[in-house]
């Protein structure tokens, strides 16, 4: 199930990474990274721990400066001007413990250039939206961790940002609040905001993202749509037939997995670019009697494991 893609809108890049690198002494956190994020999309920024996702997001916000390359945020260089149109939820969350939830959101609204009364209205609206309308007057240290995270989300969105950066936004949230957050992300995209979020949980990316950028060790491994990502993996299917499908066109490998009587079960790996439908047609054409034909659609998890760890044995699940 794919999220509705804003295909009819002209997609100007709101974020451009152009051969960007970031060195910390001897360590290369981001290595010659290039990608673009078109306006209005939800982009998943994926990668294993230490891949450089957080550094990349800090580069967007001008918290750190690139060692090489160029970054463009909403058509300009990162900095004060761009920040006002960006909302950011960091991975490590925190607020002033003695401030109330409402004052926290108002404070960040004001830092983003929103004036007093408007900031107060926006804070009330956002707190209501994340389900905290009744606790605006409570201090942060009196809220649960999940509630505080939602206050921080409200603070990140209070300036109605054109570009929203969410660093591991689902971590620490219970399933109900994860669903609330997914709704908010979809709403943002529907209202024209561009959302970039990093995550380890591929199910969220699968449900939300129009595009994906996968990085590891600071380098880009993949940039494209979910379908394009899935095509990175060889096609697989399970076949129960009276005969051996190994020689059929498009079959890279066929491994027998047992069977009953004259019927054999096969795990078939397709050659790159081969279509399962063509294989089914070839089965009929060659007279191979087929009782079960189940193409396997690779998950993003499979793609992730395959791309990040191509020699590993974790793919296929």
């Amino acid at each position, binding site marked *: 199930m794919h999220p509705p893609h804003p295909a009819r809108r002209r997609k100007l890049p709101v974020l451009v990474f152009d051969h960007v690198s970031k060195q910390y002494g001897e360590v290369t956190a981001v290595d010659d990274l290039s990608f673009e994020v078109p306006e209005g999309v939800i982009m998943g920024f994926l990668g294993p721990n230490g891949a450089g996702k957080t550094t990349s997001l800090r580069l967007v916000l001008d*918290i750190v400066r690139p060692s090489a390359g160029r970054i463009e945020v909403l058509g300009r260089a990162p900095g004060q001007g761009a920040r006002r149109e960006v909302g950011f939820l960091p991975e490590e969350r*925190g*607020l002033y413990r*003695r401030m109330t939830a409402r004052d926290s959101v108002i*404070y960040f609204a004001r*830092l983003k250039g929103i004036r007093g009364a408007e900031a107060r209205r926006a804070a009330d609206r956002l707190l209501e939206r994340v389900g905290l309308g009744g606790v605006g007057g409570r201090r942060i240290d009196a809220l649960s961790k999940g509630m505080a995270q939602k206050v921080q989300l409200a603070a990140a969105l209070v300036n109605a940002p054109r570009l929203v950066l969410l660093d591991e936004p689902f971590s620490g949230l219970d399933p109900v609040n994860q669903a609330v957050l997914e709704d908010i992300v979809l709403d943002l995209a529907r209202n024209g905001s561009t959302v970039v979020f990093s995550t380890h949980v591929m199910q969220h990316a699968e449900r939300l993202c129009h595009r994906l950028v996968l990085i590891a060790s600071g380098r880009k491994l993949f940039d494209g749509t979910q379908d394009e990502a899935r095509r990175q993996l060889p096609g697989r299917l399970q076949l129960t037939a009276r005969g051996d499908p190994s020689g059929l066109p498009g079959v890279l490998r066929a491994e027998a997995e047992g069977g009953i009587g004259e019927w054999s079960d096969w795990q078939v790996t397709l050659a790159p670019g081969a279509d399962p439908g063509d294989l089914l047609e070839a089965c009929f054409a060659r007279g191979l009697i087929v009782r079960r034909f189940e193409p396997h659609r690779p998950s993003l998890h499979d793609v992730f494991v395959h791309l990040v760890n191509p020699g590993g044995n974790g793919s296929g699940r």
Partner: protein
Amino acid sequence: MREVLIVAQREYRQLTSTRSFWITLLAIPLIIGFLALIPSLYGHKAGASAFFVLDRTGRYAEEIDRRVELDYQRSLLAGLVDYAKHWHVHAPPSGAVWADRRGRLIDDFDTEAFMKAGGIDAALAEIRPLLPPDATPFETPPRRFIRVGLPAGIAADASDEAFGAAVEKLLSTELDTPDGRRPFGLAAYIPEHPEDRSQPVRYWTSGRYDGGLSGLISGVVLHDLRARMMQEHGIDAAAGLAIELFYPATRVTAPEPGEGANRIALRSALPLGLAYLLLITIIVSGTMMLQGTIEERSNKLLETLLACIDANQLLQGKLIGVGAVGLTIAGTWLVFAIAGAYAIPADIMETLRPALQILHSPATIIYLAFYFVTGYLVTAILFLTIGAMSDSMQDAQGYLVPLVFCLTGPFLVLVGTVVDNPGGLLPVILSWIPIYTPFAMLARLGGGVSWVELAGTSALLLLFVFGEFALLGRVFRASLLRAGQPPKLRDLVRLMRR
């Protein structure tokens, strides 16, 4: 700039909402006020004390009363002289003993002349027409000693031992006098033959209210015994006593309060007070600022902040916010000090007036403000950087202890030396070390500093502040999102070079 002020406003609100801020703000003035109150409580109790004398000779009671009265009249005359001087009564009737004496000491002859001329009532009648309209009435000083009869239970022929045993029970009591009950001050026992050195004149005091009374009584006995000895040796006792009591008129020329020897000390009082205030304010507000930054680090909210503003804006906002807290503390203490000054009696205020003369020069006021602000900046940046490098107060202690030691050590030495010699080697050296310049120059301003030194140290200080802001600003920025152990000294140097 708007973002900087928003950060400053938040810092200010958070810090001023803490309990420690209010304790700091109010505790010191209240403690000082309480300490100032203690002497006045003492003074009230010490108004007059009661004494009695067992005179086994029967010769001295009258003379003791006369000397006590003379002592009181002398205090009236002294008070009157100060009163006339305070209200600038420059045209006294010729020969008035209370007129401006130009340092001439008041002796017994003056006092007797004062009494002969009608005493306090006559003198006040003379002065009154010459006083300015706003003059306050003369406050008659209270008597210090009131003689009472022997308390019940003490026989007029008691031995010194029996007398002493009875007096022991009265040391902490009050005695009935014509002016009501007064604390016991002294009991004197004059033996039958005081000329016999085996029979000493003895005194019992409570240790609190003697005030020279024993010396006065001894003087009476001494003069009598000497007169007798003269007589025995065929010397005219009256002439001998006159010779003995003769006292040459003496005039002491000493600087007026706030002049001469006291001038530097008094003129340095305000700048030194400001330097001290600066030191306390910096340490108090610097520690608050440090805690705030550590909280931001440990609460992981720096990244959220830095997504809205850059590190320089955060640094500036914090400096302004905590600076405002420091100024609030300093300003409140100044208000307390001014309020306290109004409560000080006019004559003491007159003495302190030279301390405020330094404020008559606009240039000096500008310099006071300049050194206060730069002094704050120089050290506040250090506190802020320590906060940015530390994950906890425990981490911060490693830097904080040496810093506070470096700040306070030379300052305490400076205060001790600057009043004696503002141009001495140590104050001058400290003036040229930027981290101490504000303290040293504030402390020296009262004693007078050359323009060359003022301009030179100020220029160096400004350069240092800018350099410090640039170098430590880098450490601050680099440290904000750092994880792991606090940086070591060599790491700091590396961060400054970035």
